[in-house]
């Protein structure tokens, strides 16, 4: 009976993993099947042309801009907020409120973020439709993801590390950046990778704040079009699935590159830890 239950559960584990991988392969396969035909040097590095047949280089640049700016703002704020919640705050009402707020932010549809960003950053703060307005909106979107994942990984840092460091006359701050954050790094990193995914995959919040201008942005105050917005527009208006999928391929490559470098960096950082 126990063996049966074990085997059943084991079977379910394998089945789930199989399903997840199958879905992964199907989606990636679908995107490559549909889009591979369009991929060429000209497509990736060429300038956009409204007549068709142009490239997507401006969108690639814009996408990289939004990723970098959003992360530069969101990562430190998110990590520090999590640090406050887990390491500094007394576990009371304030913390509960902050937690609840963070959690609720994760469930808000991106279109609402987009509308909010359009009113707050674009109009009220007079940033105009621009990469920076979109990046700030994206910052709000990924903040909860970073806070939550960082908090979780802080929880896994043994209390004995904190005690050991404090007992050596180190301040909380020193303890934080010398011991706690390095040990929590893998978890934080997976949060950042998830955030990159969210940023890259976002469309509604971006086209309402950065717009859809299909030209090379001159600065972060320019209105511009990201890859995802591009694939959204071509799907929605032209129904051009091949083009959308080709953009998807480029995105997959970008994400892969980012993930690999993130993992590589964390390995470098944690050499002593992992060895």
């Amino acid at each position: 009976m126990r063996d049966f239950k074990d085997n059943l559960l084991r079977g379910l584990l394998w089945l789930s993993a199989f399903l997840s991988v199958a879905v992964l392969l199907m989606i990636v396969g679908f995107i490559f099947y549909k889009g591979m035909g369009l991929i060429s040097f000209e497509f990736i590095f060429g300038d956009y042309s409204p007549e068709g047949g142009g490239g997507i280089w401006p969108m690639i640049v814009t996408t990289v801009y939004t990723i970098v700016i959003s992360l530069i703002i969101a990562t430190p704020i998110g990590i520090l907020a999590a640090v406050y919640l887990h390491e500094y705050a007394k576990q009371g009402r304030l913390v509960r409120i902050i937690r609840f707020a963070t959690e609720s932010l994760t469930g808000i549809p991106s279109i609402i973020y987009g509308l909010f960003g359009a009113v707050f950053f674009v109009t009220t703060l007079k940033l105009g439709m621009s990469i920076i307005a979109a990046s700030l909106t994206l910052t709000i979107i990924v903040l909860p993801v970073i806070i939550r994942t960082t908090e979780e990984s802080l929880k896994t840092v043994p209390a004995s590390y904190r005690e050991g460091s404090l007992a050596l006359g180190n301040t909380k701050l020193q303890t934080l950046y010398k011991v706690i954050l390095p040990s929590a790094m893998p978890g934080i990193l997976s949060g950042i990778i998830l955030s990159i995914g969210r940023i890259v995959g976002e469309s509604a919040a971006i086209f309402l704040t950065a717009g859809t201008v299909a030209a090379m942005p001159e600065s972060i105050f320019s209105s511009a079009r990201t890859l995802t917005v591009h694939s959204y527009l071509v799907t929605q208006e032209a129904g051009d699935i091949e083009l959308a999928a080709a953009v998807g391929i480029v995105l997959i490559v970008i994400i892969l590159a980012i993930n690999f470098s993130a993992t590589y960096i964390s390995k470098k950082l944690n050499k002593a830890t992992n060895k």
Partner: protein
Amino acid sequence: MNRALKEHTKELVKQNETGKGISEMAQRGKGNAKIKVKDLNLFYGEKQALFGVSLDINEKEVTALIGPSGCGKSTFLRTLNRMNDLIDSVKITGDIIINDENIYTSSDVIKLRTKVGMVFQKPNLFPMSIYDNVAYGPRGQGIKNKKELDKIVEESLRGAAIWDEVKDRLKTSALGLSGGQQQRVCIARAIAMKPDVILMDEPTSALDPISTLKVEELITQMKEDFTIVIVTHNMQQAARISDKTAFFLNGEVVEYDETDNIFSTPKDQRTEDYVTGRFG
């Protein structure tokens, strides 16, 4: 407990004097009160763990804390460097004066902790290299010079009787060491801070006899410079290395006296019961 075991414990305890004699520490003059604890009460939330503890700990002596499991030895030890501050629910009343300063009214807890080092019950090395673990404290104090750090690391590791075992792998992770090795690196890490007072919470409970003896020898040497407070379950260890011994029971100090007196002529019946194994 059966008779045989009781007698056996007595045997163990008798052995004190011998150990004491051998460890060459009998004729040292009495130090001054380095640490004065007055009427200390400690609560974990509602639950009181220490009840009116008062005792003076002498400078450059070894003070041992003994008592059954759960009696509050670790808790008491951790009040001396304010390690209990980390637990939100802890409430403390009473005074602890170290170097003529009330550590709970003075706010410089960093200075306190650089002056009062600690070695914990379970080894708690950081997930970094052995070298970095030992250099951790000095670096926190702003020592950056590589030569100086090298020197401190080597001295401290030698001091903790582990240098030979790790000298070729200083740059590898400290977590790859065995439990015993880890604990000795923890001791090295504490020594590296050159503190005034060193608190040790069963520092040798994970060590083999050889390392234990080395550490005991080390403690004996260290008291030339440091004031040492040690929690131990090993009564022979207390007898061998300590000058004074405090017997804790249910959060109270039942008896505090010269180690010799505690083991040979305890005043309190409960102390006698405990050290002769008649207790519980």
